[in-house]
């Protein structure tokens, strides 16, 4: 598989009142064409900011301080705002956590869908009338693709007239309208009921297979990752702490944080027994000392862990940020 997205040593900082927060600290990652990468981590681990940086959507007071972002052979950070705008929505698309707030309440679904096509689709016919028909047909097609019943009649409706699951589907339809090479799905199921969650994830997997696009699935649900992702990347306090093929990472974690996450998932076999939480809290990102960030909460921590820990190779196509990686059971 060829490489689609390669991020190297990305740092994104926010200049806040409390001090400089390095929300993304030296993140490197790769996504191949057609692949699905799961990104796991708790709130504030930097997973959303990492991909906002990739999209060029980090807002003031945040900024990317260094790193390289190669997408489809081009460095995104070298692009002009207009080039970046042309890439967004056409080649890289994004869905957000809550479709209710991500869709504009004052515009119809049809308008919000067709404007992406108008902005990017060069295959639309030139004539005014023909163009309008082509756009409409495409909108109907996209809504049909994501499973909205009788799409023709629903284009003129507003987001609030749809159910939560339907809104999520509409947002996915908008993201996929230009057949992007990469879809960044930021917590696509968090705002949904459990039954709808499964449907939406099925939909994304299904379309991914059909369109052959790569997907980055940002989530804090390891169960979702296990079911849908080829590879997984675990983030903690702005850093990647472990990455590798999903099955290996889940069955044989190489970082104590990943182990902690897996241990805190409720399982039917463990009924009646208390869950094993990860003790302590995520460290404050302001003025972090250069040492292992997980060490304060780590059951395996030793005095030598108070140094900056790089990523180590932990087997074929696997890496982990832990000095005691060999001692892991």
């Amino acid at each position, binding site marked *: 598989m060829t490489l689609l997205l390669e991020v190297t040593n990305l740092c994104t900082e926010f200049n806040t009142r409390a001090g400089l927060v390095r929300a993304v600290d030296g993140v490197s990652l790769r996504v191949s064409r057609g692949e699905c990468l799961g990104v796991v981590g708790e709130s504030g681990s930097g997973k959303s900011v990492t991909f906002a940086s990739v*999209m060029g*959507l980090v*807002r003031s007071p945040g900024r990317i301080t260094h790193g390289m972002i190669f997408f489809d052979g081009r460095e995104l950070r070298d692009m002009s705002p207009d080039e970046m*705008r*042309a*890439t*967004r*929505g*056409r080649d890289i*698309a*994004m869905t*957000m956590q*809550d479709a209710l*707030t*991500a*869709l*504009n*309440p*004052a*515009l119809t679904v049809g308008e919000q869908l067709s*404007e*992406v096509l108008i*902005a*990017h689709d060069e295959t639309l016919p030139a004539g005014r009338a023909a163009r309008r028909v082509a756009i409409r047909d495409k909108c109907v097609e996209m809504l049909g693709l994501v499973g909205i019943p009788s799409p023709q009649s629903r284009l003129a409706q*507003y987001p*609030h007239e749809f159910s939560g699951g339907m809104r999520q589907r509409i*947002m996915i339809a*908008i*993201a996929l309208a230009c057949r992007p090479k990469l879809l960044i799905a930021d917590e696509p199921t968090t705002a949904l009921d459990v039954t709808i969650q499964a449907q939406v994830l099925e939909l994304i997997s299904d379309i991914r297979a059909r369109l052959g696009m790569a997907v980055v699935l940002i989530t804090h649900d390891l169960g979702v990752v296990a079911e849908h992702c080829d590879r997984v990347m675990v983030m903690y306090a702005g850093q990647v702490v472990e990455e590798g093929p999903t099955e290996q990472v889940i069955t044989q974690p190489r970082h104590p944080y990943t182990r902690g996450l897996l241990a805190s998932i409720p399982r039917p076999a463990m009924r009646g027994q208390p869950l094993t939480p990860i003790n302590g809290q995520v460290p404050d990102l302001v003025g972090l000392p250069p040492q292992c960030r997980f060490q304060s909460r780590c059951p395996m921590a030793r005095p030598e862990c108070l140094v900056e820990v790089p990523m180590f190779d932990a087997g074929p196509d696997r890496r982990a940020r832990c000095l005691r990686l060999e001692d892991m059971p």
Partner: protein
Amino acid sequence: MSFGKLLERIIQLIPVLLGVSLIVFVMLALTPGDPVQIMVGEQSITPEQEAELRRDLGLDKPMVERFFIFLGNAAQFDFGQSYYHGRPVSAVIAERLPATIELSLVALIVALVTAIPLGVLAAIRKNSVLDRLATVGSLLGVSLPGFWFGILLIMLFSVHLQILPVSGRIGYASEVPTVSGFLLIDTLLAGDVRAFGEALRYLILPAITLGLPMTAILMRVTRTSMLEVMRQDYITFAEAKGLPRRRVLFRHALKNALIPTVSVAAIEMGSLLGGNMIVETVFGWPGLGRLVVESIFLRNYPLVQAAVLLYAVTYVLLNFIADILYTVLNPRVKL
């Protein structure tokens, strides 16, 4: 928008009008000065003549009785005779109303076309020099009294620079046949472009003076709501779609940001009514505001009462329009 809702609004109007009538009636009665004395002025008349005049005007009856007579007549849309004009009050008001409406609408347009772009610019360039200037400007705009600002404009543009007329609605030389009562429309209907330009020149200063506080308020509302909207997820999502910046700002952000602006504008139109009295007096504008001021000085009771009722109806109507506009702009709300 159902018929029932409309009916509800009209019924709500009744207690408002009753209350307003009572307050105005009592306040006029408490105001020192006697209309008969003012009418007679320096002329010497016999006590008999004076009593007869008082009887003609209905002022010989006790106050409570006068109030109920007024209410009974007003319910039949009869607001009595203007003491001063010797004609029905409704006719006098109808004659002066178009000038006031014309001035108010132009002031509204001036306010909207300056406040909205300024508010948007201030929001998207938050903390820039322009933003700060706009903020200071809007503070001044709210706090400058209209009579002072108007006179300042007259001194600058009419007296010093001599590029705009001092007062009035149109030059004496221009004769425009009255069709709608709005000079801007009537001059165009008459095909008289020169007169149209002249009417416009007479309008500029009063419209700016009248519109200034509204401009200031609308600018602030637009800026605040634009800042609020720009933080929303749907703006990030619109950016993520790779839409042109213009479209994100004007279609996605402004359409939502205008919802409060338009509602406030409709309600603020009501406050233009009060401003009209001052501005029309300063600029010698022959509208309803000046008529009311003159009538107060002359203790022309029927006219003041009718005009204040008209103001109250207009105010309620504007609030109603604000509600309708709110639902038009905001598809989530049904009236």
